[in-house]
């Protein structure tokens, strides 16, 4: 029987959870980032729709549109490659928490304004995938947060560039 502590230990030390987390989170964020880079105006409109960043001065909004997708792409690529795992995992985890709160608040506002239930709201979240239903999107984000946390916290370095770099001749790197 797997105890909670045993399960946490497995998540932290085994190679498989890290591999799954890297592939899922890395792949998703590279995809999202590339879509945003391909359609910067769509991302600009969606980000403006949240009303988080000011219209004047325009620099924070415009710089976010230009830079944020590349943070996603770089972090995603680093996870896929297995390098700088902690930093990439922490950054993506933190960003996804912020995105999730923003999506939830914005969707709540839309639902209240139009007399809909939260799960009946559909809008362009600016995620790089067009319009989404809110509840599945929030569930997806929670899964991404958990997986990014696994990637950031794992001690395993098996099947990673970091593992290759630090591998001892006896092959003791990672588990």
């Amino acid at each position, binding site marked *: 029987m797997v105890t909670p502590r045993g399960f946490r230990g497995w998540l932290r030390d085994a190679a498989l959870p890290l591999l799954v987390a890297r592939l899922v989170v890395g792949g998703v964020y590279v995809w999202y980032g590339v879509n945003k880079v391909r*359609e*910067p105006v769509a991302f600009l*409109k969606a980000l403006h729709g949240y009303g988080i960043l000011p219209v004047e001065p325009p620099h924070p909004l*415009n710089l976010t549109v230009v*830079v944020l997708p590349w943070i996603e792409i*770089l972090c995603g690529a680093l996870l896929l490659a297995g390098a700088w795992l902690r930093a*990439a995992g922490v950054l993506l985890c933190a960003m996804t928490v912020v995105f999730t709160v923003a999506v939830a608040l914005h969707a709540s506002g839309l639902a209240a304004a139009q007399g809909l239930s939260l799960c009946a*709201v*559909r809008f362009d979240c600016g995620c790089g995938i067009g*319009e989404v239903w809110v509840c599945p999107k929030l569930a997806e984000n929670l899964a991404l947060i958990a997986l990014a946390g696994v990637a950031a916290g794992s001690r395993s370095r098996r099947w990673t560039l970091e593992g290759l770099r630090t591998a001892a001749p006896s092959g003791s790197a990672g588990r």
Partner: protein
Amino acid sequence: MMRRIVAPSVGIVLAAAALGLAVNALRERDAIEIGRAYFLAAPGVPAVPPASAPTPARGPATQAVAPGFWTRAAEEFALIDGARARQLLEAARLDPTHVLFLDARSDGHYREDRIPGALQLDYYNLPQDVAPALPFLREVPWLVVYCESAECMDGYLLCRALVDRYGIARERLLLYTGGMRDWRERRLPVARGTGPW
């Protein structure tokens, strides 16, 4: 902590900033002008996307508007409906120097379908698009501006930019509120591909 998380994170953000700015500078279309205020504080902000709005055919072409947007826009510009836009198209066919249609949408949407004779002035590529069109814009008496639909703010933003940045007289601008979606629903003629007609 510092060595394993903070320093690499700063490195990632700096690298992303360098890459993003470089790629943005190399773009021929849709480059973001860092210092340009694309959106205005009035009328109709914050923009609220309509829940369960019809999904655009390809990507989010629409910029949703807040309640009361068109009421406030009507205080600045003359608004017209599809029937009036159709009359103006007939006038433009008879005398292209009298009426000019301006399409505020993106390249893909403009190529896909547009009001015949419309000139593309993509609001997000305005400096690039407006330069060759400026002589016409200053001479043609009536300019009809439209974007994708009544949920789209870009037509209004284009009108504001033409007045504020390029000195076009406000009285010459007619804003077609229903936009291309209304035009299609009325089964009026459209042009496709490149070139206005």
